[in-house]
C-alpha cells in the first residue's frame, strides 16, 4: 500500500511515540505497574492520533487499565468509573463552561462584530496599518466575549480580509492578522481553556482570569506593535487608507449644519442652536447630537464626583472597621466598600469612550489603573487619611492645589488627570466626522465593553463567582441580542444547541480523563515520572523550558483540550518540586497552546480562513502570514517567563 504524503506527518509522530515507549520498556530490567502506566500513556496518545473520539478512548483505555491495576477486581473498577463520572457532573468549576459558551454564541449571533470592525477601522484610520490594527482590536474585544476561534476567524475573514485586500494589503500580513487575532479568544478571559486548566490543576479560575488578563493584553499589544512597525517599514504591504476610504458619510441633517459653519462639533452645534442659519434643521436633531456630544463629559464629571466621594467618605467607616475586625472589611461595611468596589468597572466603561474618541488605541489601556488599584489602595489610603469628608468633596475641582493636602490618594489624582486630559482632547478634536464615528462606537463598542467589564470585573473583584458572572454574562448576551434586534427563536435555538454540543464535548472529555487519570495514578505512573524527572537534576528554568517544549510539540497532533486533561495531571504534581506556581504554569501553558493554533500544518485557524478567502489566497500564503505572529507568541512566552509579574501582579494584588 502506498502511503500518501499527508499521512506521513501523523504516522511518523505515532511511530516516534511507540518507539519511545518501546525503548523505555525494554531498557528496564523489571516491568512494574508504573511502566504499565507509561505504556498506557503512549498508547492513548497513539489512539487519539488515530482519530477516534478522545473522550471514549480515554474512558475505554482508562477502564481497562484500572481493571488491571486493581488486579482484575471488577466491582472496584466500576465504582471508580461511576465516581469519576459523578465528580465531573457535580463539578462546581466546570459549570461555568456552558454558561460562558452560551454567552459567547449569543454575543456572536448578535452580529456586533460587523459594526465593531467598521467603526474601529474608521476610528483608527490614521494609524499605520489601520485595517490590520482594527482587525486585531476587534478580535481582542470579541475575545473577551467569546472564545470561539472558528467563528471569529471566519467572520473576520468575511469582513476584514476583503477590506484589506482591496486597500492593497499584502495577503500574508492580512491573513496573519486575522488568524492571530481570532486565536486571542483562547487566552483572553473568560476563556474556556482557563476553566479547563483550573478544573484539572485545582487552581482558582478567578486567579487564572486575573492572571491571564495582562498577558492577553500584552500579546495583543505586541501584535499591534508588529503590524504598525511593518506598515512603517514596508508601506507597500500595508498602504495607508485613501481619503475616500476614510471618509465618514454624515447624515443629511448634520451635513446641513456643517456647511458654512466651523467643523468642530461642539461649537458648531451650539451656534446652530442659537443661530438662525440652520432654520431648516429641526431643533430635536440638534439637541440629540448635542446630548451625545455632552455625554462623555457628563459621565466623566459624574464618575469624578462619585469616585471622589467614595474615596474620601470611606475613611470614617473604614477606620472604624479596621479597628474592629482587622482586614476582612469587605463583608461588614457594605455601604462604603461596595461603593468603592463597584465604582471601577462602571467608571471605566464610561471613561473608555473618551480614550476611544480621541483616537488613542482603545482597549489596551482600559482596565489598567482603576480596578487594579482601587480596591486595595482604598484600604491603606483610608487608614492614613482622616480628613473631614465634607470639606474634601468640595475641593474636587481644584485639581493641582489639592494634591498636597492629601485628602485623596495620589493614584486618584493621576487617574483624574489622565482621564481629564483625554476628555479635553476628545472635545478639542471633535469634528462632525468624529462625532459620527463616536456614535457608531456608542452602538457597537460600548455595550459590549460594559457587558465584558461587568462580567470580568465582578469576577476579578470577587463580587461574584465565575459561575454567577457567567450567568449574568449570558443574560447580558440575551439583552444585547434583543437590543440589536437579532434575537429570534432560531438564533436562540442555535445558540442553545451549539452550547449543548460544545459543553458535551468538553465535559465528556473530563469524564473520560477522570477515569484515565485515576488509572494512571493507580498504576503508579505518576511516581515513576516523578522519580525520573527528579533524577535528571533539572533546574527550575530547565524544567520549565522542557515542559513547555513538550507541550508545544504535543500541540501539533493534539487539541488543547486533550493536552490539558491528559498531560496536566502529570505535570502539575511535579511543579512543587521545582517551586513553580501552578497559576504561573497555567498562564505559560495557555500562551503556549495558543501557538498550536497558529503552527502549520495543523493550524485550524488557517483552514477556517481558507474556507472563506478569495480563491487566489493560497494556504501557503496564510501559513506564511502566521509565522511572524507565532514568533511574537514565543516572544510573549519568553517575556512572561522573564517577568512573571506581568501575569502574577494582578492576582497577587487582589487575592493576597
Amino acid at each position: 500500500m502506498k502511503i500518501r504524503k499527508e499521512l506521513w506527518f501523523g504516522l511518523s509522530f505515532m511511530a516516534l511515540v511507540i518507539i519511545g515507549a518501546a525503548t523505555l520498556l525494554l531498557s528496564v530490567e523489571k516491568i512494574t505497574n508504573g511502566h504499565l502506566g507509561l505504556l498506557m500513556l503512549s498508547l492513548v496518545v497513539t489512539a487519539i492520533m488515530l482519530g477516534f473520539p478522545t473522550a471514549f478512548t480515554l474512558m475505554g483505555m482508562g477502564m481497562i487499565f484500572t481493571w488491571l491495576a486493581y488486579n482484575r477486581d471488577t466491582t472496584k473498577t466500576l465504582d471508580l468509573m461511576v465516581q469519576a463520572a459523578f465528580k465531573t457532573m457535580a463539578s462546581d468549576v466546570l459549570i461555568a463552561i456552558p454558561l460562558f459558551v452560551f454567552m459567547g454564541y449569543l454575543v456572536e449571533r448578535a452580529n456586533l462584530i460587523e459594526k465593531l470592525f467598521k467603526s474601529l477601522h474608521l476610528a483608527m484610520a490614521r494609524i499605520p496599518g489601520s485595517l490590520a490594527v482594527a482587525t486585531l482590536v476587534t478580535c481582542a474585544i470579541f475575545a473577551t466575549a467569546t472564545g470561539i476561534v472558528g467563528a471569529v476567524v471566519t467572520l473576520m475573514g468575511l469582513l476584514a480580509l476583503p477590506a484589506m485586500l482591496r486597500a492593497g494589503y499584502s495577503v500574508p500580513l492580512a491573513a496573519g492578522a486575522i488568524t492571530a487575532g481570532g486565536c486571542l479568544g483562547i487566552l483572553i478571559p473568560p476563556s474556556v481553556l482557563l476553566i479547563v486548566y483550573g478544573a484539572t490543576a485545582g487552581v482558582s479560575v478567578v486567579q487564572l482570569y486575573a492572571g491571564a488578563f495582562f498577558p492577553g493584553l500584552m500579546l495583543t499589544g505586541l501584535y499591534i506593535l508588529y503590524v504598525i512597525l511593518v506598515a512603517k517599514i514596508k508601506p507597500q504591504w500595508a498602504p495607508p487608507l485613501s481619503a475616500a476610504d476614510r471618509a465618514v458619510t454624515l447624515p443629511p441633517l448634520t451635513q446641513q449644519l456643517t456647511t458654512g459653519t466651523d467643523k468642530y462639533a461642539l461649537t458648531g452645534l451650539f451656534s446652530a442652536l442659537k443661530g438662525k442659519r440652520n432654520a431648516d434643521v429641526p431643533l430635536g436633531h440638534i439637541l440629540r447630537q448635542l446630548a451625545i456630544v455632552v455625554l462623555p463629559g457628563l459621565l466623566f464629571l459624574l464618575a469624578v464626583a462619585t469616585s471622589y466621594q467614595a474615596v474620601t467618605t470611606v475613611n470614617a467607616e473604614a477606620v472604624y472597621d479596621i479597628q474592629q475586625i482587622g482586614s476582612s472589611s469587605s463583608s461588614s461595611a457594605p455601604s462604603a466598600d461596595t461603593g468603592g468596589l463597584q465604582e471601577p468597572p462602571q467608571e471605566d466603561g464610561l471613561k473608555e469612550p473618551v480614550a476611544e474618541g480621541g483616537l488613542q488605541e482603545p482597549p489596551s489601556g482600559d482596565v489598567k489603573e482603576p480596578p487594579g488599584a482601587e480596591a486595595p489602595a482604598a484600604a491603606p489610603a483610608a487608614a492614613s487619611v482622616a480628613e473631614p469628608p465634607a470639606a474634601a468633596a468640595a475641593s474636587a475641582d481644584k485639581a493641582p492645589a489639592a494634591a498636597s493636602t492629601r485628602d485623596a490618594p495620589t493614584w486618584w489624582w493621576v487617574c483624574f488627570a489622565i482621564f481629564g486630559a483625554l476628555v479635553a482632547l476628545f472635545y478639542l478634536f471633535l469634528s462632525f466626522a468624529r462625532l459620527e464615528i463616536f456614535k457608531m462606537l456608542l452602538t457597537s463598542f460600548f455595550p459590549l465593553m460594559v457587558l465584558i467589564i461587568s462580567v470580568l470585573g465582578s469576577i476579578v473583584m470577587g463580587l461574584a463567582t465565575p459561575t454567577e458572572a457567567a450567568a449574568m454574562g449570558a443574560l447580558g448576551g440575551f439583552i444585547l441580542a434583543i437590543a440589536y434586534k437579532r434575537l429570534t427563536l432560531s438564533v436562540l435555538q442555535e445558540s442553545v444547541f451549539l452550547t449543548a454540543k460544545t459543553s458535551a464535548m468538553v465535559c465528556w472529555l473530563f469524564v473520560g480523563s477522570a477515569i484515565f487519570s485515576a488509572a494512571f495514578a493507580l498504576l503508579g505512573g505518576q511516581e515513576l515520572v516523578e522519580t525520573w524527572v527528579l533524577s535528571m537534576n533539572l533546574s527550575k528554568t530547565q524544567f520549565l523550558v522542557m515542559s513547555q517544549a513538550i507541550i508545544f510539540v504535543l500541540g501539533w497532533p493534539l487539541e488543547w483540550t486533550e493536552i490539558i486533561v491528559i498531560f496536566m495531571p502529570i505535570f502539575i504534581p511535579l511543579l512543587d518540586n521545582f517551586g513553580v506556581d501552578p497559576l504561573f504554569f497555567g498562564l505559560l501553558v495557555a500562551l503556549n497552546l495558543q501557538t498550536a493554533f497558529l503552527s502549520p500544518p495543523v493550524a485550524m485557524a488557517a483552514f477556517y480562513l481558507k474556507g472563506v478567502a478569495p480563491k487566489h489566497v493560497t494556504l501557503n500564503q496564510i501559513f506564511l502570514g502566521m509565522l511572524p505572529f507565532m514568533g511574537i507568541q514565543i516572544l510573549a512566552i519568553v517575556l512572561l517567563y522573564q517577568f512573571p509579574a506581568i501575569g502574577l501582579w494582578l492576582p497577587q494584588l487582589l487575592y493576597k
Partner: protein
Amino acid sequence: MQSFLLAVDRFSTWIGKACAWSVVLLTVLISWEVFSRYVLNRPHAWVLDAQIMLYGLLFMMAGAYTLSKNGHVRGDVLYGFLRPRTQAIVDLTLYIIFFLPGVIALTWAGWTYANESLAIREQTFNADPLPVYPFKFVIPVSGFVLLLQGIVEIIRCIQCIQTGAWPVREGDVEEVDVEKLKEMVHVKDEDMAALERDLALKESHK
C-alpha cells in the same frame, strides 16, 4: 435499516436538545439568585445544588446528541486524510475495543449507583435538601442513550466498509456555518467575485 439509524439519531438528538434548554434555565436561575441574594438579601441554599444538577443534566444528556452529529473532539492529524473505508475500519475497531466496554461499564455501574441512592432516598447535604437520586439516574440513562447511539455508529462503520462511503446523516446547527455567517454580516458571493476581479485587474496593471 437506514430509517432505523436515522430514527435513533433523531431520538438522541431530541433528548439532547430537550436537555440543552437547561442552559437557559441555568442562566435564569442563577441570575435570579444573584439578584435575590445581593439585592433582596434573600439567598436560597438549594440553588447551588440545583444549578449543578442542571449543568450535569445538560452535558451528560447531550453526549449522545453530540456523538450522533459527529461532534466529539477527535485527533485530526491522520483521520481527516484517510479514505472513508480506512476511517471506518479504525473507528469500528476502536468502538469495539474502547467505546463498548467503557460505556457498558458506565451504564451498568451508574445503574447500581443510582439505585443505591434511591434505596436510601439520598438528599443533598444542605439546609434545604434536594433529592439526589434522580440526578444520579442521569448517569445510566445518558449512558444507555449513548450506547444506543454507539451501536448505530458501529452499524454505520460496517456500512461504510461495505460501500466505501459514509452513510448520510441529518444536518444540524454548525458552529461555523459559512453561509449563515455570510448572511449575517451581509457579505454576498457577488461581492467576493467582484473583489477578485478588481484585484486581478490591479495585478495586471502593475
